[in-house]
């Protein structure tokens, strides 16, 4: 039994990373109807910025803070330069464009910092503590705490502030929002900014484990896509629950299903997502309209 809890705990910690990136994807999808395949690479770029600042002698936390501010700016600039001009383009075009964002940021990282893996310091102390026979890492607790803080902050902003209400309105219906005086473009821009910050946090949290490289977030993006699909593409809560569920099933599947093993571990959450979609095509918390053929 203690193996089970051990696997759940480590699954939740990894799941929190998937959840954060999925949350970024969902925020952007809700606001601009675009699946940003470049979200992971934008985040990697921000993690490199943190690394670079530390090379220049900036203390870790300050470097993280500065990179998050930078990530906000990157989100806004990406929206203004790349997304806004083609917001009403057909979905095929937006897919190609966001794949372009992926290539752009990956190439930028490669060009500036090279392809080799760099070690990245953890935000949390190295040790852990035991609950019974289960050993919990401080980094796992810290990662989950940061995800919880993001979720609470977003919940508060969306539910209780005028800014959050306007952002939700802009995501819900642009024309109606214009008519009530919401500055729609500004809200969508802020949405991209916030999403970029959340993605950057995910990259900074996972970098100590995966080592920093230009392709570090590419596999994470697949888990995040599964998480967003599982939870429902228009539900931030769904992204979080989906991310954690993907993390836990991945961790359990890799250990309990001998034929899966380490190399096929991504198959387990994808299978889970498929099963959920068969039962509920919009995902667990999704509510958008589904066209039946």
């Amino acid at each position, binding site marked *: 039994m203690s193996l089970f809890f051990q696997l759940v705990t480590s699954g939740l910690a990894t799941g929190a990373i998937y959840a954060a990136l999925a949350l970024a994807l969902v925020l952007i999808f809700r606001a601009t109807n675009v699946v940003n395949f470049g979200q992971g690479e934008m985040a990697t770029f921000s993690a490199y910025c943190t690394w670079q600042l530390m090379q220049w002698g900036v203390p870790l936390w300050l470097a993280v803070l500065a990179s998050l501010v930078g990530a906000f700016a990157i989100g806004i600039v990406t929206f203004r330069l790349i997304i806004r001009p083609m917001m009403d383009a057909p979905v095929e075009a937006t897919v190609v464009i966001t794949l372009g964002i992926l290539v752009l940021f990956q190439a930028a990282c490669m060009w500036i910092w090279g392809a080799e893996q760099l070690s990245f310091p953890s935000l949390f102390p190295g040790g852990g503590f035991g609950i019974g026979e289960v050993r919990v890492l401080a980094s796992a607790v810290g990662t989950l705490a940061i995800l919880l803080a993001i979720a609470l902050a977003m919940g508060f902003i969306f539910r209780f502030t005028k800014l959050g209400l306007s952002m939700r309105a802009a995501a819900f219906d642009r024309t109606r929002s*214009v008519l*009530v*005086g919401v500055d729609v473009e500004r809200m969508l821009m802020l949405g991209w900014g916030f999403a970029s910050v959340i993605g950057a946090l995910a990259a900074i949290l996972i970098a100590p484990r995966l080592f920093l490289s230009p392709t570090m977030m590419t596999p994470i993006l697949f888990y995040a896509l599964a998480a967003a699909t599982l939870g429902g593409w228009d539900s931030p809560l769904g992204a979080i629950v989906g991310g954690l569920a993907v993390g836990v099933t991945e961790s359990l599947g890799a250990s309990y299903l001998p034929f899966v093993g380490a190399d096929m571990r991504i198959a387990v959450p994808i299978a889970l997502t498929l099963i959920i979609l068969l039962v509920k095509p919009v995902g667990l918390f999704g509510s958008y309209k589904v066209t039946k053929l």
Partner: protein
Amino acid sequence: MTLLDIRDLSVFYGKTQALFDCSFSVGEGEFVALLGSNGAGKTTLLRAVSGLLPFKGSVFYAGKALDKISAQTRLALGVAHIPQGRGTFTEFTVEENLSLGATIVASRSQVREDKERWYETFPRLRERRNQLAGNLSGGEQQMLAVARALMSRPKLLMCDEPSLGLAPSITQEILAIFKSLNKENGMTLLVVEQNVDITLQYADRAFVIEAGQIVASGTASDLIGNEDIKKSYLGVAG
């Protein structure tokens, strides 16, 4: 005094022209109806005035040319537009819809005051303040759309087909509310309708639009009796 002055207004969707040199004006404190059948250009005209569509010609509101002014600024100047099909935020609560209506209002106390005021006018909205707008009946949604538009304290309230999908008695109720806003608060109204007979009971004056052109105008009492106009342009059988 003229509040809204429209001169030679033309609107294009790509290469297709939807409005052809429309000219008319609405005086301050007037209740004006814009009548026409489906596809006549009524909605297009309102969308041009509120800033959702670019136009050629000129639109003056309180003496200001609107063509270079954003939709948001037009709202702040006092031009409110209730779109066809209510335009409520169906996945938001009634209360949130009212808050959204006050997006351009900076003062929190004014927002509280106005919510209270419109809940007095529309008691059913108060009862349902925490329900999702999408769960309201058609009539309640139209009332919510009106109350939401009023939250920005408009001087000119434009409403696109309030009768759409509503029972005649509910339409009467909505138009009666417009009439009292007009009489008691001096609000200027421009209501677009296909439902000629009911609308003319409440409006002071009306314009008839057909195929993108203003083809007739007159006081409500003149038009009520004018069977020719009704038959020719409004699809009303004798």
